[in-house]
């Protein structure tokens, strides 16, 4: 009864193409954004911000990146961790070499560096497809991690091999380093994710998004209608890597504060891939859902037993995590290959007709 489009007619192409054509949806989003900006920083406690919301946002960014490349453009990538590492190390080097540059610019610059690296590792994609390309991205993953481990310049010759985010302020507020408070860091992450999610949504509903999907669905036909395969694939790699790079930089500066290369190893690549698969490939919303799901699951696993009075050792939690994730992937691929986002859409469809069955 509540969720109806009656009376909502579109009188221009522009309004037909809007992101949230149904007015109720639009209000819901405005409300969510308002809550995210105005209420959560004050209401949420340190733990929620630090352990749940901030990593959720950061991984949403990474999932957006991977979704653009794998979900929309159809190029399977197992190198997400490596690209995040590029972003983190690039941001680190940039800010240690040029401490006066404001952090947001540093993050964007780190993203650009990662985009270039992404193009380089995306070059094979003209000749190589599908699974073979995934192996090339594995090469990127392993090589990049090795590089950041071995070449001292990247970690400023720090004997422990870790890199630590130096304290920086922006507009007078401490945003990185030990003094930066969780709400501040959360707000910065939120802003980045909100802006870039919007940009991503715009891209996928424009020409570039359509060319990506064309290449994904039938690259030969795409070329025959005039789409240039190499430029399209490279643009997907570049933009996707940009997103992953920024997320890596945020990961270092606004989340952990201090990392070693292990933070971006192949497990991360798989994790982000799971987020994209479970959340929904080829869906911006799906990136959010998937990131949320995978960020929350471990917390749930470690804490839920407590609520019913059982103990959950850390090892067991990790093993259960692997089992559940693996099982869920298979489950989703069988039941709904388009992930939770599609289930959400189907749910909304049902809601539109409720209480009528069809």
């Amino acid at each position, binding site marked *: 009864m509540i969720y109806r489009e009656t009376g909502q007619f579109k009188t221009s192409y522009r309004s037909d193409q809007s992101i949230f054509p149904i007015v109720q949806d639009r209000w819901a989003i405005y409300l969510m954004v308002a809550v995210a900006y105005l209420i959560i920083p004050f209401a949420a406690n340190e733990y929620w911000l630090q352990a749940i919301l901030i990593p959720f946002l950061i991984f949403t960014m990474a999932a957006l990146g991977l979704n653009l490349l794998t979900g929309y453009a159809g190029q399977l990538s197992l190198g997400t961790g490596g690209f995040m590492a590029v972003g983190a190390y690039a941001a680190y080097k940039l800010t240690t070499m040029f401490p006066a540059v404001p952090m947001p610019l540093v993050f964007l610059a780190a993203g650009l560096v990662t985009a270039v690296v992404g193009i380089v590792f995306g070059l094979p994609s003209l000749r190589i497809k599908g699974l073979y390309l995934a*192996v090339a991205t594995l090469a990127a993953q*392993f090589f990049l991690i090795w590089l950041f481990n071995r070449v001292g310049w990247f970690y400023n010759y720090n004997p422990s091999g870790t890199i630590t985010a130096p304290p920086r302020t922006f507009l007078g507020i401490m945003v990185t380093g030990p003094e930066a408070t969780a709400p501040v860091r959360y707000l910065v992450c939120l802003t980045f994710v909100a802006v870039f999610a919007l940009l991503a949504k715009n891209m996928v509903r424009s020409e570039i998004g359509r060319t990506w999907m064309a290449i994904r669905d039938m690259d030969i036909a795409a070329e*025959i209608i005039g789409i240039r395969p190499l430029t399209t694939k490279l643009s997907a790699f570049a933009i996707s890597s940009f997103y992953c790079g920024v997320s890596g930089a945020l990961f270092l500066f606004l989340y952990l504060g201090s990392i070693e290369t292990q933070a971006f190893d192949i497990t991360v690549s798989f994790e982000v891939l799971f987020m994209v698969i479970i959340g929904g490939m080829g869906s911006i919303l799906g990136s959010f859902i998937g990131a949320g799901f995978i960020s929350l699951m471990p917390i749930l696993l470690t804490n839920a037993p407590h609520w019913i009075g059982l103990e959950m050792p850390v090892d067991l939690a990790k093993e259960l995590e692997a089992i559940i*994730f693996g099982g*869920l992937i298979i489950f989703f691929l069988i039941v709904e290959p388009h992930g939770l986002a599609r289930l959400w859409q189907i749910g909304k469809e049902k809601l539109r007709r409720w209480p009528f069955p069809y």
Partner: protein
Amino acid sequence: MSEWLTAIFISPFLDMASGPIFFAEVVISGLLAGVMYSMVALGFVLIFKASGVFNFSQGVMVLFAALTLVGLMERGVPLWLALLLTVAVMITLAYAIERVMLRQLVNQDPFTLLMATIGLNFFLEGTGELLWGSNVKKLDVGIPEDSLEVAGMLLNKFDLIAAVIAAVLVTVLAVLSQKTKIGRALRAVADDHQAATAVGIPLTTIWVTVWAVSGIVALVAGIMWGAKSGVQFSLSLIALKALPVLILGGLTSIPGAIVGGLIIGVGEKVAEVYWGPVLGGAIENWFAYVLAMVFLMFRPHGLFGEEIIERV
């Protein structure tokens, strides 16, 4: 700068030339390591040939098989019985995978199937560790590990025995594939599922068979690897390295898996020994992948792989 260039382009070759025996040892140890990779790759090829599924979890199957074997032995089960039981487990696993997963995904595209095997990868890993624990285990199956001197070179008995076993395994599989009815049926299924069912080949039986055989191959590989370096999580990472092997050898070729494995094995060892010191070591982490990637640029379907002609 020129110092660096010399170190990359000249010194390693001088080193090789000046110490030929050592070089031969390195190459041979590379070949032997390559044999192990080939065994893992073999499992991939079998499954891909027969069902078109790229079984990403092959590496974890190696781990799982080894874990089961060791787990049983730790609980006092004698080796021969443990082997039998593990084989039974792998066969059951094959059956379960076919029933629960493959059957539901019959008409999906290769991408989806690949993702499903990635999910399987994690599922098996978690289950294996849950059942048998996650600490490193020593696997002793009674294979000697000391060295043998052959033609002035020092070789490891274990490696040699592993190579022999692998050779036997491959020959058996190749013969079975070419000469027997089941082998023919497998090849028919690999070519065209629908046509194969049309001539009466039972798809599900074939698939269960193939996954089971793959599981046994995984067990052999697991024993070899496990006896050499202990049974642990990193075993599944080694299997990731079978991917470059497959790239080089082609996804559908049994001889290709062997040749690819040998090339990767030798390439890695030689690169590590002669270029490692210059570049800072641990080149093995990425060398195989980069080699495969470069290779792909020139031969997108691998050395022995079939070229897929795309028609409109």
